[in-house]
């Protein structure tokens, strides 16, 4: 028990700098991911190194070749001692050394023949990274991965230029992290406790300190009736934030589309995401009273501490209430479709509720449908000789982290010092 706590503390320290980027949830997504690498040449090794350092759950390396002299010059994961041995095995040994928390397995087989003979092999992974694979095998692999909704990252390097393609059938985003988003103050449709609190504050309080520290949420609620003295900070905040009152009430079109999507009819094979979408639908129709679950956080504002804390509590309590209601719906649905009612964690439900306004569903075309424009892009940049790059495939990792961090996917073409994103325009839903 104590040992486990110590290990957890050490992991926190080790991953501190990246936790500051993607937080515990991003880290958990990484640690729960299993990845399969096809061909561990220099490109694949670079990608694996970065994933293993970050603490990815498990790695399976598929490579049928033996370490040759030519591998030593360009692959830092190999040394003279590895000569003649299985390349997959040697790489795995090194990866274990790099991060002993990561499980590393290897399969001594050519990726091309594995794709041909054992397509179901790939369904166990979260992500498949295919490097230097011939186009024919790649398209076949893309088909296999799409069927199982597994992320496929295909990388190819051509001397000093390279190409990374990312694909999967459907990508569900909970934390889409939009650049601009209004606070969920719910002023267009306040609930009983919030109304009561607003009423309890005497905006005509003669004490100047109290007057200067009435939170703007309250004032927004009252401001139409109590235009007073506008040179005070809190009143300025209220006026500047007044557009928040007029935030479009109800549910955005994007969310409506998700709720009405054909996947929002669940059965036993539905993913957790879609189970939650159905729960959301039921919540809106019942407790939600036409609204999504409340986020429950309020921004900083000029306020007396007591007022701020009371407001904070009111918002938090409402958010907890909503989340609890969602949890009931989730359990009901899971029971209905014959799954364990506790199989979706409370943390996940909480994250879903908090981000309910920001859910996104992206669907992508298959590589077969979408392969040609990329090639022409590459050719275009072959003619630019003044840029060239050494370690471009590392961008692989950015893609993967973006995915694990629940953001959108893109493909990249590396053209010397510029990396071009070929946004894989999601299909319209």
């Amino acid at each position, binding site marked *: 028990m104590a040992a486990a706590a110590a290990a957890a503390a050490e992991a926190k*320290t080790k991953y501190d*700098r990246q936790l500051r980027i993607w937080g515990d949830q991003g880290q958990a997504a990484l640690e729960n991911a299993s990845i399969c690498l096809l061909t561990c040449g220099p490109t694949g090794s670079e990608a694996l190194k970065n994933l293993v*350092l970050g603490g990815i759950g498990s790695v399976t390396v598929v490579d049928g070749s033996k370490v040759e002299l030519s591998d030593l010059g360009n692959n*830092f994961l190999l040394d003279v001692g590895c000569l003649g041995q299985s390349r997959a095995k040697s790489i795995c040994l090194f990866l274990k050394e790099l991060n002993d928390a990561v499980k590393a397995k290897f399969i001594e087989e050519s990726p091309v023949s594995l794709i041909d003979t054992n397509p179901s092999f790939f369904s166990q992974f979260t992500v498949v990274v295919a490097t230097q694979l011939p186009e024919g095998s790649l398209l076949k692999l893309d088909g296999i991965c799409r069927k199982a909704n597994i992320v496929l990252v295909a990388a190819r390097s051509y001397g000093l230029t390279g190409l990374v393609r990312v694909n999967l059938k459907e990508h569900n985003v909970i934390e889409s992290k939009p650049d601009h988003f209004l606070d969920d103050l719910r002023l267009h449709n306040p609930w009983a406790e919030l109304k009561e609190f607003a009423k309890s504050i005497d905006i005509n309080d003669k004490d100047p300190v109290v007057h200067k520290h009435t939170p703007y949420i309250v004032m927004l609620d009252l401001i139409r009736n109590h235009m007073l003295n506008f040179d005070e900070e809190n009143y300025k905040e209220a006026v500047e934030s007044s557009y928040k009152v007029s935030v479009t009430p109800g549910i955005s079109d994007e969310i409506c589309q998700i709720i009405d999507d054909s996947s929002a009819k669940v059965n036993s094979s539905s993913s957790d995401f879609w189970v939650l979408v159905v729960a959301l639908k039921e919540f809106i129709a019942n407790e939600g009273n036409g609204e999504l679950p409340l986020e429950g956080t309020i921004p900083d504002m000029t306020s007396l*501490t007591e007022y701020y804390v009371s407001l904070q509590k009111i918002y938090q309590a409402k958010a907890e209430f909503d989340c609890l209601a969602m949890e009931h719906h989730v359990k009901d649905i899971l029971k209905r479709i014959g799954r364990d009612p506790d199989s979706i964690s409370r943390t996940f439900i909480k994250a879903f509720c908090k981000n309910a306004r920001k859910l996104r569903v992206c669907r992508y075309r298959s590589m077969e449908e979408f392969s040609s424009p990329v090639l022409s892009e590459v050719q275009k940049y072959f003619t630019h000789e003044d*840029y060239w790059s050494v370690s471009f495939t590392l961008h692989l990792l950015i893609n993967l982290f973006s995915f694990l961090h629940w953001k959108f996917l893109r493909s990249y073409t590396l053209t010397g010092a510029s990396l071009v994103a070929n946004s894989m325009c999601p299909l319209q839903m």
Partner: protein
Amino acid sequence: MASSATASEEAVKAAKVLMVGAGGIGCELLKTLALSGFRDIHIIDLDTIEVSNLNRQFLFRKCHVGQSKAHVARDAVLKFRPNINITSYHANVKDAQFNVEFFKQFNVVLNGLDNLDARRHVNRLCLAAEVPLVESGTTGFLGQVTVHVKGKTECYECQPKPVPKSYPVCTITSTPSKFVHCIVWAKDLLFAKLFGDKNQDNDLNVHSSESGSSKSNVFERNKDEDLDQYARRIYDHVFGYNIELALENEETWKNRRRPNPVYIRDALPEEDSRQNGSSHDCSNEQEEPSAMVSLGFRNPQEIWNLADNSRVLLKALRLFFEKREKEIGNLIFDKDDQLAVEFVTAAANIRASSFGIPLHSLFEAKGVAGNIVHAVATTNAIIAGLIVIEAIKVLQGDYKKYRMTYCLEHPSRKMLLMPVEPFEPNKSCYVCSETPLLLDVNTKTTKLREVIDKIIKGKLGMNLPLVMIGHTLVFEDGDGLEEDEAANYALNLEKVLAELPAPVINGTKLTVEDFQQELSCSINIKHREEFDEEKEPDGMVLSGWSAPVEKQVTSNGGASSSGAPDTDGNPEDISTKPGMKRKLDEILDSKENFDASSTSSAQVVDDDDDDDMVMLDEDPKLAKKKRLQ
């Protein structure tokens, strides 16, 4: 194409390169250099390996923690490239051994540093030695690589560097309004007062109105004073009594919310002192003492309430006296010192609650207090690749193809890596041209020491300065001085400018030099009596140098190759938001046909790190102007 490939191979094989820094960028860079065919590589790094490096500095393992980064990196790379020469120095790049002669032996210098101070130092040595410099930095998913070649491109200091945000003293001591103010107070005033050098100036009590009363010893533990009683006395003094005193000054609170004094009896009413005083705890003896662990708090991301913060504070104070008494008097806040972080978090939170500022978790507080930069392997690997590309261009003298390259978080104009042509040298740069500077100062009240600390070392980044007035040498730093000279200079330090052996008055011209950096510049003095305490807290104003324009990101902490990183001795190293976004916008703007709106994805980063640091350097406006000319 084929011939150019051979030429570059030859250039690479023959090159002798110096890498400064073997941290996040350094590890990737050393690997890429070795794999690209470089055969003679020298590495300088002062740092030792820490656990928090292991998520990206892939040449290091857990068993290397505590060892020299430079040496371990060298050994790791020699394992897969046994036939090349790597020379490692576990040393500060500012050491005298790394003089201009030393720099001259290299064909190119590659920086993977984490702090402004060392970057400026290396820039000066490269200029003096006429060796090209490839400079780099990363923060999270952002990064940049720039090339500096004397006479061809701007030097690292041609454009203003973002300088750490500093806060007016009175905001910190009396009227905090943000959490960061409380952190600065806890770290630089309270922590320094209790555990740091007792002779250091400290503003902790300055603004309490009871002048004259010899209260200065209130922070000393009295003889035989019970440790618990002492901790509670300190608590009540700083969070209770001092706030009450401040409240007496009605003027201050006219337009501000009045803080609430917090006394221990209110924060922890249910605990009598005896209970709290139980000094034994179950924590393992050989482990690092931790107040959190002894109190059973496990999660650093949880926000403690006032009572919990008070418990942590009292406990941490006790633990310092019980377990680390020898260090008291010499402690400097260090973000890797768990107990120090706990103390500062708790103190900042108690102060925050008194001023109605939202409380923060230990994890967040540590990020603010330590200026921690987030970092991942990927960005470092990309940046290292770009450094090598530029290095090869430099080796081939291909200066028309030099590029500054920015690595973005989100594609902008469909690009993630953004190459920009380098700028010309800034003709009025005090480092690479010889333009004099202007110093506004009160010559009748300012001591030479203040000018040296705040301006010559603080702003001009000189290491071992020498100050001349006409032909009179008034100050020289460094070893090897005669005793009487040293005594004489020490006397001069404490004199006000106008009373120096060669008086400094309005119109005087100072010459300051640093022999190690081979940098010399002139400062014209302008006498001025009034300074704005808020805007000009130094009491003097330097102009004509690249003045800081933006709030910033500093780097900090571990400090790869410079011994004096922007550690935590003063409030100035706290940073909030850097100018990344605006800068990129401007640069992109200055390129034709640029869709500026597409750059909104270039995000701003908030803090820093120990190992690999970017920063965003040149003033975008200046840059823009020059390019358009």
